[in-house]
C-alpha cells in the first residue's frame, strides 16, 4: 500500500508498529501495523469485539489499557509516553462513541478552555470570549447545531444525535491534526449522518488526517476513505480501498474471517 501514497517522502502523522495491547491482562490488539499520512482518510472496520474501540482508547491514552509491546509514533514522537491531555494538545482528537455528560459545566466555557489549552501548547495567544464566540458561530453553521446547545451543560440531556454532532462540532473548533472518530455513525439517522459527514469532509485538509472507525459501510457513502482496513481478532486482516468496504457489505465479515481461517 505504501507506494500509493502521493508523496512517500512525507512523514506519517501516525505510525503504529506491531502494537500489542489489552485490558486487565487480556490481549485484544495482536500486532497492529498502520501508517497514516497527512491528507489521508482511513476507515477502520470490523465486527463487534474486534478491537476497534480498544485501538482508539490506546491511542487517546485511556486509563486501564495496557500496551504490552509495539511502538506508536505521532509526528515522529513516542505517543505512548504522553499523558492523555498532552496528546490532545498535540492535536490528537477522539470523537467518543459515548460522549460523556458533565453536568454544571457550560459547553461554551468547556470548549473555550480546551481550545486555549491547545493554543497555549502551540505558542499561540489565547482567544478571548469575543474572538471565541465568533469562531464558534462560524463552526456551528457547519453542523447545523442550535445555539442553545452551547448554553447548556456539556452533553447533559442531549439526544444521541446531538451528542455525536457536538463531538464533530468540538472537532471543528479544535481543528485537530489527527481525528479519530469512534463509531460516530452509530445511532444516527440518515439526516444526522449527512450533517456529520459534511462536517468531517469540510474539515479535511492536506495537513490533517482522519481515522474513521465504523461498523457499517453506510458512513463511507458520505465520507470517502483513501484506505479501508478490516480489523478482526485484534489484527488488520486486509487493507484496500472503498471497494473493500462495499464487498464487506455484500458478503459480511464472515467471508473474510473464513478466508483467513483457510489461509491459516
Amino acid at each position, binding site marked *: 500500500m505504501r507506494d500509493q501514497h502521493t508523496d512517500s517522502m512525507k512523514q506519517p502523522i501516525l505510525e503504529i508498529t506491531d502494537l500489542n495491547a489489552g485490558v486487565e491482562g487480556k490481549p485484544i490488539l495482536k500486532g497492529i501495523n498502520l501508517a497514516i499520512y497527512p491528507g489521508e482518510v482511513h476507515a477502520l472496520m470490523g465486527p463487534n469485539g474486534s478491537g476497534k474501540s480498544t485501538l482508539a482508547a*490506546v491511542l487517546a491514552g485511556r486509563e486501564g489499557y495496557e500496551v504490552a509491546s509495539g511502538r506508536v509514533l505521532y509526528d515522529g514522537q513516542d505517543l505512548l*509516553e504522553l*499523558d492523555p*491531555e498532552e496528546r490532545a494538545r498535540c492535536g490528537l482528537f477522539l470523537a467518543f462513541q459515548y460522549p460523556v455528560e458533565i453536568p*454544571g*459545566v457550560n459547553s461554551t466555557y468547556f470548549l473555550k478552555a480546551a481550545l486555549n489549552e491547545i493554543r497555549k501548547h502551540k505558542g499561540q495567544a489565547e482567544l478571548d470570549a469575543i474572538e471565541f464566540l465568533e469562531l464558534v458561530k462560524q463552526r456551528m453553521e457547519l453542523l447545523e447545531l442550535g445555539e442553545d446547545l452551547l448554553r447548556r451543560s456539556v452533553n447533559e440531556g442531549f439526544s444521541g444525535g446531538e451528542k455525536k454532532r457536538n463531538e464533530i462540532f468540538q472537532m471543528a473548533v479544535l481543528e485537530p491534526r489527527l481525528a479519530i472518530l469512534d463509531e460516530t455513525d452509530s445511532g444516527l439517522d440518515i439526516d444526522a449522518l449527512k450533517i456529520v459527514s459534511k462536517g468531517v469532509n469540510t474539515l479535511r485538509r492536506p495537513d490533517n488526517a482522519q481515522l474513521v472507525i465504523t461498523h457499517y459501510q453506510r458512513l463511507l457513502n458520505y465520507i470517502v476513505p483513501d484506505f479501508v482496513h478490516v480489523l478482526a481478532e485484534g489484527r488488520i486482516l486486509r487493507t484496500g480501498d472503498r471497494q473493500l468496504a462495499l464487498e464487506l457489505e455484500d458478503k459480511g465479515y464472515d467471508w473474510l474471517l473464513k478466508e483467513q481461517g483457510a489461509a491459516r
Partner: protein
Amino acid sequence: MMSTATETIEGLVQRDYKYGFYTDVEADSAPPGLNEDIIRLISAKKQEPSFMLEWRLKAYRHWLTMKEPDWPHVHYPPIDYQKAVYYSAPKRRGEGPRSLEDVDPKLLETYEKLGIPLKERERLAGVAVDAVFDSVSVGTTFKDKLAERGIVFCSFTEAVQQHPDLVKNYLGMVVPYTDNFFAALNSAVFTDGSFCFIPKGVRCPMELSTYFRINAANTGQFERTLIVAEQGASVSYLEGCTAPMRDEHQLHAAVVELIALDNAQIKYSTVQNWYPGDEQGRGGIYNFVTKRGLCKGRNSKISWTQVETGSAITWKYPSCILLGDNSIGEFYSVAVTNHYQQADTGTKMLHVGKNTRSTIVSKGIAAGHGQNSYRGLVKVQKSAVNARNFSQCDSLLLGDKCGAHTFPYIEVKNTTGRVEHEASTSKIGEDQIFYCNQRGLSTQDAVNMIVNGFCKEVFRELPMEFAVEAQKLLGVSLEGSVG
C-alpha cells in the same frame, strides 16, 4: 509502556494552606482555664457595664449544667475546656485614642498578607472591614463614612460601651444563652466580634465585612456578631476566617444573630477557611458555631450563603426563624471536606408567620477521607398558613474513602404547607476526567471545572469578589484529591 499520569484516586498530595503563618506579637493573655474569675477578668478587660457581666455569669452557670451534644455525625476526642485560653489580645502600644493609625504595624501586615489591607489608601473599595485578631477587634474601616448614614459598624466591645441600649435590647434575642452548649459557652466568654445596626429605611451603601483571624496557640476564639436591620433597611455582610497551621486542635465557638424588622433584608455570606488540619488529620480548627436569623417583621428576608472549606470539624446550622408574615429565609451552602475533615452542617427553617417561604440549596463535596453530612430541619408551625419550602441537597464524591450523608427532618403542622425536598449523590467519574483530558484539560482543571459547575447555584448568590475567591479556594482545597 503506556503511561497515563492519572494515578489512583487515593493519590492525595499535601494541600497547600497559604494562610498558615503565625504573627509574632506580644500578647496579653489570660491563664488557661475557665471559671467565674476568668469571666470577670474578660468583662473587666472590656470595661463592660454590669448588665454584661451578669449575663455572662448566668450563661456560664447554665453552661455548667449542659452536656456537649453527641448527635452530630462527627468524631473527635473529648475537649478539655480547662486547657484552653479564653482571652488573648495583642498588646496595645501605649494609651490614647484607638484608631487604625495606632495599630501595631505587624498586625496591619498580617491582614495585608491575608489580602485584607486596612490602611486608608489601600482599603478594599466598597467593603468596610472589621478585623478581629484572636480575642479582639484591631480596627474597623470606613466607620465614619457609614456613621454619616446612621449606620453603626464597630467591634462588639465598642458597641457594648457606646450603644449599650441597643446591645441590651437585641443581644440573645435570637440565640439565648440557654440555646445550646456551645452558644452558652460563647455567651459566657465571648471576647469580641462585630456589631452592625442599620437604621430604619437605610440601605447600607457598601458591603460590611468581618475578618476573623486566630493567631495565638491554645487559644479559643469566641466571637459574637449581631446585625440588626430596622424597618426597610438592608445590608450585605461578609465574613472571612483563617488561622495558622498547628498540630493541636483549636476551638472556635461563635454566635451570630441577625434580626430583620418589617421589610428589612439581611444577606450574610461566609467564606470559611479555617485551618483544616493536615492530610493525616493532625491539627485544625474545631468550628462549633450557632448562626441564626430572625425575620421578625413582615416581608423581611434573611439569606445565608456559606462556603465551608476549612476546619477539622464543622458543626454549624445557619437558620431562619420566619416569624413575620410573608418573610423569606434562604440558605445556600457549599461544604467541602478533604483529608480527614468532618462537616455536619445544614440549616433550620422555622415557619411561624403566614405565607412564609424558604429555600435551601446545599452542595456537599467530599474527598480523601472526608465525611460530609447535611442536616436540615424544615418546620411548619400551625400558624404558618401557606408556607412554602424548597430544599435541594446534592453531594459530590471524589474517590471512594469519603462519605456523604443527608439527614433531612421535616415537620409540617399546617395542611396548607408545601414542602419539597430533592437530593442527589454523584461521583466525579473517571470517564468525565478522561473526556476532559482528551480535550486538552489537565485532571486538576477538570476537577475544578466539574466542582465549580456543581456549586454554581450557590456561587452566584455570593457577592462578586467573594465568588471569585470562593472558586479559587475550592480549587486549592481539592488540590490533589483526584489522581
